[in-house]
């Protein structure tokens, strides 16, 4: 049957199709936006960390209200941890992956003027301790590290005369240097133009600890700075262990921390000693909760829409039983009837999807305006649309089958 006739029939009985269009449009708008929100939450979960995940233990929140840890104490802790049985290496660090207690914020600027927001990790020997894969250049030399004290004012810190060495990730290299090798190239920061940096090495991956920003290709926006932890009120350590001796190493780390800092640690701020896997589990808790919520919404939307389409088409078929019978009596095949209802559904859902995509875009615009949400990229619209079209086809299958089963003899009966 031609499209023109189909449209004519639909226009004659506009109520049913328009209610389907309304449902589909709403479902499409909701699904596109939810899909997008899901992707925002999934990205930090699937981004490669670049770390030796199995071997990493993170110690943080060593914290004293009354006392500032000196560089010597921080270093003594590092040595003691490194000499604990089962530990391969340890680094006193500020800023650690999956730990958002301390975040170091840089706005890097390349010589060509590209600016990128980046998180930094400080600490001695982090390349080795975190198990990073160096793909270009070199690690920091022991002589390159400068003490970094959290309590010092920037005014009190002696300005280094030469540019400060940093190690960046491959993703940053791509963003800042447009695919060219970054090693040996200078970098600047926007808020302190006098302070220069120089890239000495590039690692494959290193996940940032500002997880909310680990989306849209920004998960690896991380740098390592050649800074040794100086005086600070808050200490943290990255510890790399021998996975074969995990139990012993964890016990040893706990004892070492207690021995080194036991006197300083207050009851109200317990030290956290956890494997990377546990830290990751904690850090992604809200992401997981959001995903469950979105999964629930998606499921509910799909069920409600499918049931709606099925119900309405079922009624639609029932109303036209006689006409179907006549068609069958006049020689229409079952497959033709089936195809007719499928095509009709495709048409109606298609209109709904077009309206829905427009609606999704408008809704996202409003959300973006009020809630600092990133822009919904165009490619989410066709994905959502395809999903809804498929849903429509599946939902119409049962009523369309029923229509195809109508025997031609119905045409001869008075209803």
């Amino acid at each position, binding site marked *: 049957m031609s499209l023109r006739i189909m449209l004519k029939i639909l226009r004659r009985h506009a*109520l*049913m199709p328009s*209610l*389907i269009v*309304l*449902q589909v449009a*709403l*479902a499409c*708008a*909701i699904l596109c*936006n939810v899909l997008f*929100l899901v992707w925002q939450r999934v990205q930090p979960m699937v981004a490669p960390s670049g770390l030796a995940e199995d071997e990493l233990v993170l110690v943080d929140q060593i914290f*004293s*209200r*009354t*006392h*500032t840890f000196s560089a010597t104490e921080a270093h003594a802790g590092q040595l003691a941890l490194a000499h604990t049985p089962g530990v391969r290496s340890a680094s006193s660090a500020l800023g650690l992956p999956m730990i958002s207690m301390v*975040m170091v*914020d840089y*706005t890097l600027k390349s010589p060509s003027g590209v*600016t*990128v*927001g*980046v*998180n930094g990790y400080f600490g001695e020997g982090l390349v080795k301790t975190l198990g990073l894969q160096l793909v270009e250049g070199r690690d920091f030399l022991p002589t390159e590290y400068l003490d970094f004290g959290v*309590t*010092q004012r920037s*005014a*009190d810190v002696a300005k280094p005369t030469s540019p400060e060495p940093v190690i960046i990730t491959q993703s940053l290299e791509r963003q800042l240097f447009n695919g060219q090798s970054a090693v040996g190239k200078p970098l600047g920061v*926007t*808020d302190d133009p006098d302070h220069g940096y120089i890239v000495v090495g590039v690692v494959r991956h290193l996940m940032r600890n*500002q997880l*909310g*920003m680990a989306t849209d290709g920004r998960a690896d926006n991380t740098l390592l700075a050649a800074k040794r932890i100086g005086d600070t*009120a*808050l200490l943290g350590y990255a510890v790399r262990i021998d996975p074969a001796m995990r139990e012993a190493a964890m016990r040893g780390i706990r004892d070492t921390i207690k021995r080194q800092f036991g006197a300083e640690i*207050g*009851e*109200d701020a317990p030290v956290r000693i956890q494997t990377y896997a546990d830290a990751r589990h904690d850090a992604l808790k*809200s992401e997981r*909760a*959001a995903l469950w919520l979105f999964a629930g*919404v998606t499921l*509910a*939307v799909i069920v*409600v*829409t499918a*049931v*709606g389409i099925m*119900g*309405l088409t079922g*009624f639609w078929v029932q*109303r036209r039983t006689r006409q179907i019978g006549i068609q069958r009596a006049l020689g229409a095949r079952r497959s033709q009837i089936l195809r007719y209802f499928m095509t009709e559904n495709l048409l109606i859902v298609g209109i709904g999807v077009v309206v829905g995509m427009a609606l999704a875009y408008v*809704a996202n615009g409003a*959300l973006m305006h*009020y*809630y*600092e*949400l990133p822009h919904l990229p165009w490619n989410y619209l066709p994905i959502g649309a395809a999903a809804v079209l498929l849903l429509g086809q599946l939902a119409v299958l049962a009523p369309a089958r029923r229509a195809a089963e109508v025997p031609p003899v119905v045409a001869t009966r008075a*209803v």
Partner: protein
Amino acid sequence: MRYNLMLAWHGLTRFPRSTVLAVLTVAMGLAATMTTLALLHQLTADPLPGRSSHLYLAWVDTVRAKPQQNQSLNDITVANYHRIKLEDARELLRAHRATWQAAMVSVYNEISTNDDVHPHRAHDYLLATTAEFMPLLGVPLRSGRGWSAAEDEAHAPVAVIDATLATKLFGTADAVGRELKIGKGVFRVIGVSAPFAPQPHFYDLAAMTFSGSKRDVAFVPLHALLDAGVDLGSNDGCDEDAPKNQTMFGTEPMHCAALSYWVDLPTRAQADAFRDYLQRYAANQKSLAGYGKTARAELTGVGAWLSRQNVVPDNVRLNAWLAGSFLLLCMANVAGLLAARFLRRGPEIGIRRALGAPRSAIFQQHVFEASLICLLGGVLAWPLTLFGLWTLRLQESGFTDLARLDPVMFGALFVLAMAVGVITGWLPAWRASRVEPGLQVKSA
């Protein structure tokens, strides 16, 4: 009308399967919406009803430092809670231009009984403040008294604690006269208050926003607490010429903006006068010259303050929008179900019309039927909403333990259900009332 209602009721029982489906769909949409709205309602409620409309946060910027410029591409914004330095707080207190006024800051600290051998300890928030906090915030006193401005001046080590802390430390709520140890100081309990936990913790958002479990359990004179060596925690910035601070979290109150200064100004005229006074105060700060700052002073009401600090988490609002659009989808779905139902009984409607029922009666009957379905959906949505709120409370994100259904929202559930019924039923009922009597009777 009674007859139409009766017919509507009959209509419900005629197609039980589609009735159940419609009721379930409406219930799902309503429950999702009400769960998110109940949480939003709790989070946007007035923290101190009747009082917050005339409370203002007074702020003067006297920190001797260059204005911070923030150009992070990582969306990190430096918190600014409009706090002031101790010096300015003292000056404003001395001038006493408002009805009630107090400087305050919530501090997390250890509080213990004054017993060197077996002290009972608590770790919790206490509010370091000045004499007038009680009438200012309306802290309810159970026994004893608050302290006076003279005691503030004298750095008197006294404290008002809440009944829960009293019971925890002393085993009894009657703790007046007992002694507490906070920092290096010994404080005498002079009053016991009822638990005071406005939501959000608007008067010091730096310490906490929403919390079902945490609150200020004790009120202590600011000066005495500083004498006891207790650190005030975070600040909005320090003088550049200040001595180097000792710890990362240390705050030197003379040089760092760490105190929230709240005033009670019952009339608009008083508020305007106070605002002028603040502006003049800021303009007279000679020591700010050379830091590239203009004189800045602000007086912010509670509502404006809360919306400015964006205390309601964005995702709570986002979820409410999501749930609302899901409800719309459910409504469209039910409208379809209803239309199918109503048109199935076309012949009946035709007969009713042929027997003289006006269109309005048909319309009324069907809107009633739709409303009944949605009201049933509302009844079913009630336990579903409670379940939704329970699952919200299971997630520990600070504010979710406030997710409860209060009587207002319980009422709102049924108002919403009714509204949904009328709106959903409108189009199908209208369509049903258009049924041509003649045509239907003929074919029937």
